[in-house]
């Protein structure tokens, strides 16, 4: 493990991005990913360790009408306990309920889960369904700058994002879901929570009678990053959910997921699970 030469715990965003501008920083929030990865040698500490947990204004959930903003330091438990999340962003709440354990939910932050960029990341699939954007703040030229990026464009590969070294992910913006929008998150596992997802699926849409509109589908653990499923969405958009539509959606899904074999499952089994799970989710829509 590399030696840390400086430890800082800034209390303001300005202070934090100034430290990032200088460079060579490992960022830590809850620590649940950083600590494990440093101990197994997956992460080498940079000379500066910056604890961002004390930065003011980076936690909490705000309803601004057309946009809902979630501070990057909001913990999974805070999301689970939030009435706003329960009422307006229920697909995200479902993911938080399947996340790890109470102890880990109390420490893990939404920003941390996003920056860890695991293809199996529990919150990432619902956030893709919700058309989330990440807000990145930096101070490259003396003044604070901000940019927002759709989450789907933020992931670069397994464990990698397009966050620039001088940037801090400060919040997640979600366009308020349209009226009648309902989302379901399914994570495969034998336990309610303490599991890395073998596969996960997020499905969201507005139901108009038997027809689905504004369909969003996202998949976890079947690609190098969590992904949206545009072909699956196209097969469902504006259609009545009947047997033919379901079969078309399943074919489309098979084309756009590319699972691998690893210690948790084989690629073949993951494909089977995607098909059977998506079928079950759509049948549920069909029947209700």
């Amino acid at each position, binding site marked *: 493990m590399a*030696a840390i030469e400086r430890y800082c715990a800034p209390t303001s965003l300005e202070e934090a991005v100034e430290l990032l501008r200088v460079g060579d920083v490992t960022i830590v929030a809850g620590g649940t990913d950083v600590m*494990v990865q440093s101990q197994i040698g997956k992460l080498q500490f940079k000379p500066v360790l910056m*604890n961002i947990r004390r930065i003011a204004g980076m936690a909490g959930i705000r309803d601004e009408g057309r946009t809902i903003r979630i501070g990057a330091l909001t913990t999974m438990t805070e999301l689970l306990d939030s009435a706003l999340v329960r009422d307006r962003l229920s697909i995200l709440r479902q993911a938080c309920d399947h996340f*790890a354990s109470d102890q880990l939910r109390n420490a893990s932050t939404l920003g941390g889960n996003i920056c860890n960029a695991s293809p199996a990341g529990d919150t990432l699939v619902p956030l893709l369904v919700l058309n989330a954007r990440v807000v990145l703040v930096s101070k490259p030229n003396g003044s604070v700058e901000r940019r927002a990026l759709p989450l789907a464009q933020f992931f670069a590969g397994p464990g990698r994002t397009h966050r620039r070294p001088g940037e801090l992910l400060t919040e997640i913006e979600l366009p308020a879901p349209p009226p009648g929008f309902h989302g379901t998150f399914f994570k495969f596992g034998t336990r*309610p*929570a*303490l599991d890395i997802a073998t596969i996960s699926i997020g499905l969201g849409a507005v139901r108009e009678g038997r027809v689905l509109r504004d369909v969003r589908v996202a998949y976890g653990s079947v690609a190098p990053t969590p992904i949206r499923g545009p072909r699956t969405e196209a097969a469902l958009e504006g259609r009545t959910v009947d047997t033919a539509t379901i079969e078309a959606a399943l074919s489309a899904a098979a084309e756009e997921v590319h699972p691998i074999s690893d210690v948790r499952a084989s690629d073949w089994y993951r494909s089977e699970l995607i098909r059977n799970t998506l079928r079950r989710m759509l049948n549920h829509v069909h029947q209700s």
Partner: protein
Amino acid sequence: MSIKVEIGFKLNGVACRISVPADLSTLRMLREELGLTGTKYGCGEGECGACTIVVDGVTMNSCLMFAADCDGRDVVTIEGLAASRRGERLREAFVKHGAVQCGFCTPGFVVQATRLLEKHPQASAAEIQRGIEGNLCRCTGYRKIVEAIADAALPDQ
């Protein structure tokens, strides 16, 4: 060797000042620097819950928490809880219900249970089972642990 960081925090109700290496875990600080061995090393990766402590009122895996992040916070370990009313109720219940065999996981369960009961005073057996899903036990099969926590949830006779 990483740089040392000076921190001040409340530990089991008493103010504490200590200097810790920046990369040290809270678990190792408690056990090795502060002599509080009730919190256990089970896995070091947040999967077993043997290292559970309370920080600012919520439970955490101390193996995953940087010691430096205790600065300014309120930390309670099994040693502090054992002396509290809730801790006593849980101890009586764990003893009475046979929820302890080798006992290695027990402090982690007791700490987690205090938080669980504070948040869900009327937790059902199913809610208790979910509430302790981050704590592993190899000896008891969990049944008696769930019964003990349910018993400790009841109002004092």
